[in-house]
């Protein structure tokens, strides 16, 4: 009996342990099944995510290639936008003007009988606008002055030159030659006349040509106005000093001459030569130029004048 009880006890214990283990194993198996389901679900999700990533990677790669294939925007766009926005001529920098010229294809070999220049450069380009009361070809061509405008301007300049000549003849001061000096003349300051003529000139020019061309024309007429005494006076940029012309021999034993023109603080010296015209300021007094002055003062002009006269 004891053996049976012992056997039952041992077998019961074994059965209990077996059942417990079996139960645990069952739980573990259940957990395993759950994990397998989770794993299957996760694996499916992984496949989906991989497909998604593959798709997005392809899309990314394609977009990158498309982006890389985009041509760079031309630098001209900014300038073109500025032009199309209606920027004023003075709003363009030097570099922009040159770029525009290149864009337009303007250079010496492409423009035929004409040359295209910027208005800004035209301001710095010097040319005589008036010669003997008449507009020069350069002024008429560069500023596109019409015949009617030309007539109006030339009538005005002729009137002012006559006024100035009359005044110069009446007020020029002569000094007696001495030493190497063969002639010396001085035109005094007449601020009232200069101001009056300057006002008249500027008013007519601006009224005729408009603001832009009028200012350009006036700037190109600076030499003529200076010679006419319009730039002297208390309000002028130059000092209120008379204009003096002095003609001297370089040496007593030489026949070549030089002259010095003193205007304000500026002084210019050069040789007296046929191709070096008499300073404009004194042309009203000596319309015949160097020969008339030499005749008036009784000195010999350099030999170059005779050679020119002979030719």
């Amino acid at each position, binding site marked *: 009996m*004891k*053996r049976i009880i*012992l*056997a039952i006890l*041992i*077998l019961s214990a*074994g*059965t209990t342990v*077996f059942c417990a*283990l*079996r139960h645990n194993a069952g739980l*573990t198996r259940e957990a*395993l099944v759950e994990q397998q389901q989770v*794993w299957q679900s*996760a694996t499916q999700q992984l496949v989906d995510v*991989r497909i*998604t*990533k593959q798709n*997005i*990677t392809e*899309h*990314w790669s394609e*977009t*990158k290639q498309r*982006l890389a294939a985009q041509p760079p925007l031309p630098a001209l*766009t900014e300038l*073109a936008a500025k*032009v199309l926005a209606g920027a004023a*001529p003075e709003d363009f920098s*030097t570099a922009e*003007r040159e770029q525009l*010229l*290149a864009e*337009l294809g303007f*250079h*010496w*070999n492409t*423009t035929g*009988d*004409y*040359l*295209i220049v*910027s*208005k800004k*450069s*035209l301001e710095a380009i*010097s*040319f005589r606008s008036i010669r003997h009361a008449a507009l020069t070809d*350069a002024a008429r*061509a*560069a500023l*596109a002055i*019409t015949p009617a405008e030309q007539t109006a301007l030339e009538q005005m300049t002729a009137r002012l030159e006559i006024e100035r000549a009359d005044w110069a003849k009446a007020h020029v001061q002569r000094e007696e030659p001495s030493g190497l000096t063969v002639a010396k003349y001085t035109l005094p300051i007449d601020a009232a006349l200069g101001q009056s003529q300057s006002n008249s000139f500027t008013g007519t020019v601006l009224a005729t040509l*408009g603001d*832009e061309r009028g200012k350009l024309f006036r700037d190109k007429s600076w030499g003529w106005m200076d010679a006419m005494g319009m730039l002297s006076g208390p309000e002028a940029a130059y000092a209120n000093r008379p204009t003096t012309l002095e003609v001297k021999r370089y040496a007593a034993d030489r026949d070549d001459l*030089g002259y*010095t023109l003193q205007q304000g603080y500026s002084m210019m*010296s*050069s*040789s007296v030569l046929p191709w070096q015209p008499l300073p404009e300021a004194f042309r009203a007094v000596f319309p015949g130029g160097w020969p008339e002055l030499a005749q008036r003062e009784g000195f010999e002009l350099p030999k170059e004048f005779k050679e020119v006269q002979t030719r």
Partner: protein
Amino acid sequence: MNQRQSDFEWLQQFARAGNQSAFRDLVRRHIDLVFATALRKVGDPGGAEEISQNVFSVLARKAWQFAPDDSLPAWLHKTALLESQAWLRGEMRRRRREQTAADLGTTMKTPDEQPAFRALVPLLDEALMSLREKDREVLLLRYYESQSLKEVGTALGVSDDTAQKRVKTALEKLSQFFQRRGFKSATVAATTAVLQHTASSATTATVSVVFNTALQAAPPAFVGIGAWLVRFASLTKLQTAAVCVAVSAIPVAWQISEHREAEAELRQMQNQVVAVQNEIEMLQTETVRLTEVTDRMEESLARSQEAAERVAETEQQFAAWKDSVRARLFAADYTWPDDLPFVRIPKAVLPELDVYQPVQLPGTIRTEARELLGLTPAEREAMEAAAQKHFTAMDELIESRRFGTNQARYTWVPKDALAMQVLSVPPLGDAVAERAAELKEAWRLVLGEERWPMIEAQLQNSGTHTLQRIFNLDGESSGQEVAVWLRQQDGMLTVAYSWGREGTSFSTSGRPLSLFLPDSPSEWTGQSNEDWLGGYNLPSAFTRPMLAWIQQQAELQLKKGDR
């Protein structure tokens, strides 16, 4: 083989093979023990015989249950007691019905001649049952089966002496039991006497009856699972335990293995899940990042495409604008274009146009000169390279030939000058001609026959601002000099300079000397000291020492004045 082993062997032969002979031997060996016990309990030989029959019938039925280590005498004694009690209960019920209870008392009486142990007899079986099985077995074999000490030793598988000691020990324990129950006179000897006097022997007829009765109660021989159970029942406790443990261990081990395997699979699966989830997370992160990057790229692409469309539109409009500009600038009825940055000039009037100092140090062609010449970028680059080369060469030439003097020959210096410096250079000869030829050739090559005359005139004309003077081309045959002087003018010290060569000179207006002090602003009437000195593009071989002299004079004259 001892008695216990032979008892087990006989029981096995009887239970497995139905060996009656073996069972008969068992009955013969133990009938006295059973009979004596029953007789002592019931006091009736007929009842004792009936009880003996019952005991051996039970043995016959349960023979298969015995194990080698079981004590058959002990089991028979115990069973005999249980059967005796059952018999007595039945007998008492019968006699009560027959109202013969009084007779029963006489039946149980002990003979008068044995008064010393008479009182112990009723407690004898209780005392025997209180002993441990091996002690009880020793006494049962020695006294109820009338075995000698040698036989007892053989039955138990021990020596005679050991058997004697066990008998003695058992008797002492039995004696002590009686003494604990108040029988102070229950010595070992008295106890031995009780045992000896309560032993009885069954007759041969009783043996035969008991044997036959038991055989009738015996089950048939075991086969199949019965045989297996008999075999199992024949195992010792240790063997039984070992078999049961072994039987239990197999499924347990299997389940442990199953459990471990499942756990291992679970862990592996969990790791795989974690790995997959990590990969998912990583891929999702990467996908999000790529999506964001792609979105930004698409936005950029969209902006780029929009910009490209705008550019295309702008270019189209710009192209139209250019066509319009070209048409207007080359129209037969051309008029001044108020809204354009360009104007046209007939090439025929270009000789009347002039650019003040068209080339500047160190060789830059002025913008207006570039436009008047209609230069392309390549033409400009070539001309400026040639100009720079010429300026560098001329500067080195003048530097090498320059000398200081106190007499101005070609320049006009005012008589009231307070201090002056004259730097003179003699005619530079063929070196200038070579440089000039090189420059002219380079420019001519760039400009071509149509434009070259415009420049050639400037290169040939003498004057203060012509290219001939700027490039120093007339330095070949004529000496030149610069004079710089100080003069008191309008209440302040001024500085001016003059350049001249034979037949031509120019001079500047005065400039306050204080502008050349180290800490003073160099701007005056919108012109810096450097612009004032470089305004006529004199070679740096002249302007460098001039500036040094002026700065020295500023320090000297103005600091002296302060002092």
